[in-house]
């Protein structure tokens, strides 16, 4: 009706470069996509929670994402970019800050009428324009055409 799709994704991120103090994290996001010529463009919000190897340590990240994906292929390359608000804390200590995030990945689409389900394998980089580290992750996504 609106030529848009709405979807949710959930999965895990595993530190790949840097972030040695973190264990795997849980990631959720909600997004809207719309076909724009050859590709589909979208916008989403994301939340992630990481537990530290030190059980007292944790890190949260909440962010916005702009995405481009080629939805009508079986294997859809996806590119995302955006920013995260990060909060890390241990005991009484706490820090906040912002990061620039980007994601490169591929989705495998399984379609049933207006519904699409896809596993999503990706690398998500986090940078603060000083260092650049990142996670490898896998999510399961489900989306519906509106």
């Amino acid at each position, binding site marked *: 009706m609106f030529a848009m799709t709405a979807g949710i994704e959930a999965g895990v991120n595993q530190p790949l470069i840097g972030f040695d103090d973190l264990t795997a994290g849980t990631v959720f996001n909600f997004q809207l996509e719309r076909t724009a010529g050859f590709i589909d463009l979208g916008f989403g919000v994301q939340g992630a929670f990481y537990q530290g190897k030190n059980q007292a*340590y944790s890190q949260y990240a909440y962010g916005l994402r702009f995405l481009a994906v080629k939805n009508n292929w079986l294997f859809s390359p996806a590119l995302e970019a955006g920013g995260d608000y990060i909060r890390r804390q241990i005991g009484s*200590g706490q820090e906040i800050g912002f990061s620039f995030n980007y994601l490169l990945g591929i989705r495998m689409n399984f379609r049933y009428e207006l519904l699409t389900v896809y596993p999503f394998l990706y690398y998500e980089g986090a940078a603060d324009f000083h260092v650049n580290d990142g996670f490898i992750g896998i999510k399961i996504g489900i989306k519906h055409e509106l």
Partner: protein
Amino acid sequence: MNYNGHRTKIPWFLIPALLLITGCGNNIVERSAADYFPYAAGNWWRYNNNSSYDPQTIFVEVEPLDTLIQIECYPVTYSGVASYYALGATGIREYIKIVHAFAGEEYTVLEGFVKRIVTPLVTGSCFADSLADSLNVAGAWIKGKYEIRGLVSEFTDDELYGNVYQIAFTVRETVVDPDTTIIWDRNFNEVYAPGIGLVRFNNEQGEFHLSEYDLK
């Protein structure tokens, strides 16, 4: 509106991009992702006190892994004097031993590992640990106690080393025998940099700065 009567378009994505670039200035990714304690056998650091009246150099080197009281730890020599650090998920623990001399013999009153630094470093985090024990030496009870407190102060953006953390330590060693009580208080600060480790510290001998280092 410009002079043609057309609305001037500002790229909408520039606004969040500018906010992001400004916000990223506090380098939280670096502090979250970096290793502030690169302890590995063979790594070394050399420190100078920058004094022209009493110049001193301290050479710190990490030796191969050793085992003390069944715990794997790195001997770290400070100009030849060894401290022992056990690395773990919750931080770094240091081997502590208090001895009591009596009739030409040395008796170990207290021995064990205490928290030295809790990792990861986060502004405002504090920690404390202690060890206490006693020993009967020739009919007299000798009590020993070791207490350490640490506070991670706010990170600073150092021109040379990036986002560095300063940790303020307070250490008290107490030995009590039937006749006397000996208390040794120490206060010192250490500054750690990402990917390098200890870059500055002060103790009774003054303030020392990193002059050169080599990490394997």
